């Protein structure tokens, strides 16, 4: 089905009165996801946001709970505040990113309430990519610029209308409130077919990488990969699937809060133990960890590669340490025979 952007905008504006709607907006020369009230605020022609939308389920800094001590009494308050939300304009790579994060924040023993309370109260409206950047490589990771995996409603931009499809039950529920749905014309269908068959131009080969990495822990390849790395966290913070965090207590006198903050395994002190020992105090071990975690450990533990090919780490790295080149390097590395 399709819907004109005008009609879509009307439904959008109506929803914005009921839900918190987050959409891509122009932000100092690039694009960010921010709360909007009207469809007219949404940036139409964009590639993707500078930073991934994971912060809407997993904020960079959040208060988990707060506490106050008055005399012998201690009161503890849950600080989680959740609004029902629509995340609009999510690209296929970021939608898949959420599915990967889901595996981290839920296992057979524990479900993270902070992440899932937000996740369960959010409807994701994905939009296919009409333009492909040279740094995108999602097709090499089992995705595509028009993949609806992870979205509740999926849109394909046809110019002055959208092809609109409900993917999940939540999506069907939301779509029920939209008016002005019509059939696609033949022309529309051709355009949809073109967009759906598009692939990212930059390619990497991950077909054997997990198995290769199983044997590469002691490979000399790691000796030089890391050299130009600055050990900042630009890549980790830009990544839709990176999820490391630190929990600390922020206390002043008799009150305080427990806060969770993003952390990143590229930082030298990430693995510093209380004893003073640091198992990954070398850049070499940190870069090995990054590659192994994304392309090997996550596959073994959760069944999927923890990379969606969005290209943000490539664009944001100050020294241009390109993960695609690292993947190629791993593929080409000679295996050291014991």
């Amino acid at each position, binding site marked *: 089905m399709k819907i004109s952007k005008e009609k879509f905008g009307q439904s959008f504006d109506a929803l914005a009165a009921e839900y918190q709607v987050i959409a891509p907006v122009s932000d100092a020369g690039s694009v960010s996801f921010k709360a909007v009230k009207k469809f007219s605020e949404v940036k139409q022609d964009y590639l993707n946001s500078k930073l991934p939308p994971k912060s809407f389920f997993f904020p960079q800094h959040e208060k988990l709970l707060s506490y106050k001590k008055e005399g012998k009494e201690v009161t503890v308050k849950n600080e989680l505040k959740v609004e029902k939300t629509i995340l609009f304009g999510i690209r296929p790579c970021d939608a898949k990113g959420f599915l990967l994060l889901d595996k981290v924040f839920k296992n057979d023993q524990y479900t993270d309430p902070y992440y899932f309370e937000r996740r369960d109260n959010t409807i994701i409206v994905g939009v296919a990519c009409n333009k492909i950047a040279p740094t995108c490589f999602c097709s090499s990771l089992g995705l595509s610029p028009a993949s609806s995996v992870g979205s509740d409603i999926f849109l394909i931009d046809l110019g002055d209308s959208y092809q609109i499809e409900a993917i999940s039950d939540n999506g069907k529920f939301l779509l029920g409130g939209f008016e002005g749905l019509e059939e696609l014309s033949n022309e529309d269908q051709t355009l949809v077919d073109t967009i759906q068959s598009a692939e990212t131009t930059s390619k990497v080969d991950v077909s054997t990488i997990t198995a290769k990495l199983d044997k590469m822990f002691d490979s000399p390849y790691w000796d030089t990969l890391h050299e130009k790395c600055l*050990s900042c*966290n630009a890549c980790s913070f830009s990544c839709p699937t990176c999820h490391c965090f630190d929990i600390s207590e922020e206390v002043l006198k008799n009150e305080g809060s427990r806060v969770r903050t993003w952390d990143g395994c590229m*930082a030298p002190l990430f693995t510093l133990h209380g004893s003073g020992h640091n198992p990954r105090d070398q850049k070499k071990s940190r870069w090995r960890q990054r590659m192994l975690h994304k392309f090997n450990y996550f596959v073994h533990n959760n069944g999927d590669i923890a990379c969606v090919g969005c290209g943000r780490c*490539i664009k944001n790295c100050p*020294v241009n340490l390109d993960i695609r080149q690292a993947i190629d390097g791993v593929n080409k590395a000679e295996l050291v025979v014991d």
Partner: protein
Amino acid sequence: MTSTIDELRKTARQLLTDGKVDVVIGYEKGSLPLKATPCFVRSPQDVDKLIWDETCENNLAAFVAKTSGKKAIIAKGCDSRALMVLLQENQLAREDLYIIGVSCQGVIDQRKIETETGEIIAASLADGKISVQGIECDKVFSFTEVKDITCQTCRYPNPVLEDVHIGGSIEVTEQATAFADVIDMENKSDSERKAYFKEQMSKCIRCYACRNVCPLCYCQECFVDCNSPKWLTGGVDSAENLMFQTGRALHLAGRCVECGACSRACPQGVDIRALSRKVNKDVKEMYNHESGLTEEVKPALNVYSADDPEAFLVKE
């Protein structure tokens, strides 16, 4: 610039063949258009990877202290000043360092290009012109149009310290007003400046790319990582971010060589230079000091004079 590159590669090849150095730290072509990337050449066969042009934006001095053995480094003006400060602060041994000096025209600001063409698909550089094929449109720029903001007011394009010089020198045109950008900011009202810095600081995501790319931020334990006392809570609101950036700017007082690497490294485009430029202007005006120019002149906060200005005192 072609003959400069050949000279550069020849010098690097000779140094490695003769065993004078274990590694040559330079630039090679990056994986993105108009982007160079640091490279570590260890064998003479690999020197052809080395490039030298307006895309060479990293300050390689940041890598020197962490690289073991004897190293050669390709240093532009600002990089050589950073090396000078590192030597003054005993972070490097002069005998382990072979400085290959090159005079620098300045580097390209890709972000300026991308605001007009969208993400760059392909680009080529020739004769001061940059032809760009972008995702939104194609355009030809002159280098001066898209020169990095730091390079536009650079006064030290020629290395101040080197073991060999490759290529020619660059004549510096004296600017009409030194620190014009800072004066501009100073002339704004308090509330305008406050609003500006608050807006800039709200973009910061505390990835610390700025700190890590800076050759002069080398503390084993940075104040941001310190747990006792805990200076920063890890919150990323503009107040905390301003505390981080101001603290860092003050720790670099009298030491910052204005290479601009911090602002270029920032993935969010925060105007980090605004703070260090102000501090550098103060250091120049109050103590007539510019960092990293000669070995004899010690860093500004290591010395003092009996007549240092004290306008900051209370009036009581």
